[in-house]
């Protein structure tokens, strides 16, 4: 029995656990730490897949992930948190218990949808796909259950991690996709960084409740 499957699945499971734990976290610092652990695990998964598939491109993906997502992004996020003094607990739009129940339901849906229709695909891809779809959906759930701009960004980044996990698990996927994912994260992060600062200039708080001002105005 080779180590390929168990290790790839174990790494995916750690990422899923991080994504799930994000749902229950009220503090930004903890959210960022969870995101960082998720990104480091993703790096390990990319290296492992590169080793298993003998793909040099996957090592490159892993390296990009390590530098940008596991090191630079958390540093920038932490700086934002300190700069705006956001260390206190943040408001959620939904009770934590309810969002965790929804999270479990989403994971169930992802597994039930993916496993039956991928019977013909390579086994490794199958479970990886189910795990990464779960991470994508959980990230989206984090985005919807938070009112705070920064935690929405973290939810989005977690979604990105899920996407990269799916991409590295695809057998022989051309490099175009991996490059573009890395690009997206980089650029998206820049955009988000700009936004977060600019929103701060105008609203004094990172709470997005103010976005409803658009609704109230006459349109």
């Amino acid at each position, binding site marked *: 029995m080779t180590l390929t499957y168990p290790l790839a699945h174990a790494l995916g499971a750690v990422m899923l656990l991080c994504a799930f734990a994000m749902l229950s976290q009220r503090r930004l610092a903890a959210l960022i730490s969870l995101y960082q652990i998720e990104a480091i695990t993703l790096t390990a998964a990319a290296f492992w897949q590169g080793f298993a598939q003998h793909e040099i491109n996957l090592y490159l993906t892993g390296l990009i992930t390590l530098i940008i997502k596991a090191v630079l992004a958390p540093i920038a996020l932490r700086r934002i948190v300190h700069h705006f003094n956001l260390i206190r607990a943040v408001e959620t739009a939904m009770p934590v218990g309810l969002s965790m129940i929804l999270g479990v339901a989403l994971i169930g849906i992802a597994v039930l949808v993916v496993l039956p229709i991928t019977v013909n695909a390579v086994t490794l891809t199958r479970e990886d796909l189910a795990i990464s*779809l779960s991470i*994508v959906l959980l990230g*989206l759930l984090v985005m919807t259950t938070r009112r705070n701009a920064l935690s929405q960004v973290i939810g989005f980044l977690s979604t990105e991690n899920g996407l990269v996990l799916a991409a590295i698990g695809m057998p022989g996927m051309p490099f175009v996709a991996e490059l573009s994912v890395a690009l*997206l994260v980089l650029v998206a992060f820049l*955009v988000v960084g700009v*936004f977060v600062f600019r929103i701060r200039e105008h609203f004094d708080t990172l709470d997005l409740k103010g*976005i409803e001002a658009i609704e109230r105005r006459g*349109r």
Partner: protein
Amino acid sequence: MSAATLAIAIPLLAAPVIALIGAPLTGARANLCVTVLVFLITLAVFASPGAGLIHADSLGVIFGILTGFIALTTAVQNIAFVRAEQSHGSARRWRVYHAMCQIMLGTTLMGLYADNIGLLWVAVEGATIAATLGVSLPRTATALEAAWKYFVLGGVGIALALFGTMLTYLAAQPALGPGLTAMSLSALAANAGHLDGALMTLAFVFLLFGYGTKAALVPLHGWLPDAYAEGPAPLTTTLSGPMLNVALIAILRFRHLMQANFAAGGAALQPGPFLLTLGLASLLLTGLSLARRRDARRFFGFSSIEHSGLAVFAFGIGGATAIFAGLLHMILHTLIKSALFQALIRGAALRGGGAPGNYGFSHLRGMLATNKYLGWALGACVFALVGLPPSGLFVTEFLIVSQTIQRAPLLSLPLGLGLLLCAVAIIRNIGPLVFDPPPAGTVAIPAGRGVGLVVLHLAAVLLLAFAMPPALVLALSGIAAGLQ
């Protein structure tokens, strides 16, 4: 290097150069020069469509020329816009603005010419980032809110589309082998029957919601009215119109994969019901919400949602005729809508600047008193949008309705209701906008030569709808038959 590659590369490479130009007016002129060049190259793509990753098929060529044309007229009108607005906003914002115009153009063309689902996705992603930056440029609180909303919704859409793209690859990989072939749109279409149908269905759901966000179909449309209303008008309204087409064409191509797989006895579900539901939802929701809009840019933004929905509805009906009608509808709508926004931008500029508040219907009413040419042109554009004859949209809407009666008779009722609601809501605004007594203190001002371009758009619409060159009819019906 093929013309298609050049048409994509030139605007993308020109963007950083234009960003270096400090004076807003010089920037606008440089923007125009590059756009003229790109327009000429889009015409040449006919002769040299490229090969491999960037390979323009006839659908891409036709919409590429349309995109080049819209970009050209927008760039001409943009000079007047910059002249009127340059006192607002720092030089740095104008630099970013012109760079984003070029990136928008380049990525739109990339989305049209790409023969690779990964590249298509990159194009849509790049356009979203450019548009988000563009919307945020006025730096008002509402513009930032709109940009944030756009970014969150667009980002989620992009994420879903990427997941769908990877699933498509996975569905194609057993039949086409690993590597680039399994991501090529033409290879996928040629081998649609051999794809893994069940996986393709899952992929299609993700792709539909992903690209549907960019096409502003109803449950995912929230960003569009805000983005249209808050950003710098030429970038976020006229220039982003062709981007809706990219998303719609992507949906059409993936729909074809599903349909062909279904027809060949594969496990894919029929894509029709998905598209029909989203299309009808878009149509009915805009029909209900148009009447309540007070801001012209939001109003016509909602009307774009209506027409996106109508095109998707036509694709959902299926069959060569309906798809022909849907494609022609997209072409005509893009022409009319960009003409309309160009007239609106000019009108708002004549009425004292293009700040968001100046686009209220109450502020723009009685345009005839400001300038009779502009007033009539604006009225003609709004009327053309309704879809009554002699507007070109009448032809396509007639085709879509008659095809619906033939193929899905029950759906013709909600379709008719939606069309009627939208038409009534739009017609109600023509009278006040053109003929009402203007706000106090309005004086007649010459409108400049820009009105001629608006008329040129409308003339093109009439020509395409009622006297389309036979070669184009042949090309479009060939495309429609190939994608049915």
